[in-house]
């Protein structure tokens, strides 16, 4: 069986090369909608006064939610909402028969609360081929736009099927 993808030196040369930054926003409505989407009833995700009484700036983003990428139909993917931009793995000529999520890992350095604007940059970290599946891992870093502090890092693996 022919390889569906070859990890060439050209591919490896893209490891660690950051794509252009993108802004992600966590707002009261977006946090509530996500919390509702996962079925949580914890008031920390819904009630601003309650969250403040517990010492948070505002309602807290549930784990797994790092804000919504700013959307424009010309620049974002219509299905997934993420920015279609160069870099961060987008220059790979990957198979397109199927696309699955392989894994998600988030390292938190701070809470994400409503009102936060985050600047995300991502880069290709790893590409592996197993049978007809190509495992592509990207690393994303999210900085608070105001303080410049890194608040989260993610490793995201997608599986591209050929």
């Amino acid at each position, binding site marked *: 069986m022919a390889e569906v993808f070859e990890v060439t030196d050209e591919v490896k040369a893209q490891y660690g090369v950051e794509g252009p930054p993108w802004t992600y926003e966590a707002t009261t409505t*977006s946090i509530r*909608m*996500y*919390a*509702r*989407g*996962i*079925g*949580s009833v*914890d*008031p*920390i995700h819904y009630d601003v006064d309650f969250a403040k009484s*517990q*010492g*948070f700036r505002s309602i807290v983003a*549930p*784990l*797994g*939610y790092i804000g*919504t*990428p700013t*959307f424009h139909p010309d620049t974002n993917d*219509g*299905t*997934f*909402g*993420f920015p279609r931009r160069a870099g961060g793995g987008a220059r790979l000529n990957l198979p397109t*028969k*199927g696309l*699955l*999520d*392989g*894994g*998600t*890992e*988030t*390292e*938190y350095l701070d809470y994400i609360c409503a009102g936060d604007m985050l600047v995300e940059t991502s880069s290709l970290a790893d590409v592996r081929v197993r049978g007809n599946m190509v495992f592509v891992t990207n690393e994303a870093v999210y900085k608070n736009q105001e303080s410049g502090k890194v608040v989260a890092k993610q*490793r995201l*693996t997608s599986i591209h099927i050929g």
Partner: protein
Amino acid sequence: MAEQTYFDDVKEGQELPEFTIQPDKQQLVKFAAGSGDFNPLHFDEKFPMLKGMGIADNIVHGRFKYAQVGRIVFAFAGYKGRVKKFGVSYRGMDLINTPIKVKGVVTAKKQEGGENIVELDVWTEDADGKKTTPGTAVVALPSKG
């Protein structure tokens, strides 16, 4: 709102309070709304990719299960704890309207850099007991002292 867990009370091998979620189509559509992922794989049973995979019903978003694992970790950490890291891999698919158990167990506790660190194995489990979304988490907990 869960009771605050303290480092002093945690033991290796301790199981986290588990819960079960059985997402229906409306739940997955709400998750699409919250996450911004509108892949029809998760709500349109006629979506061609499903047929190609030989599946007759919609698949639960991997990220939905990740967020469920996030819920059990967040509830364990409490508002005074800090979730430092949590990750999963997606090893098996779960179909819509099937029960998904969300579980966790303490694997290690240690003091590191002045923090009370607890390590966890966390996962989702299908009706056959298969771990469809295994992962790990690292949490810093307050101590009573």
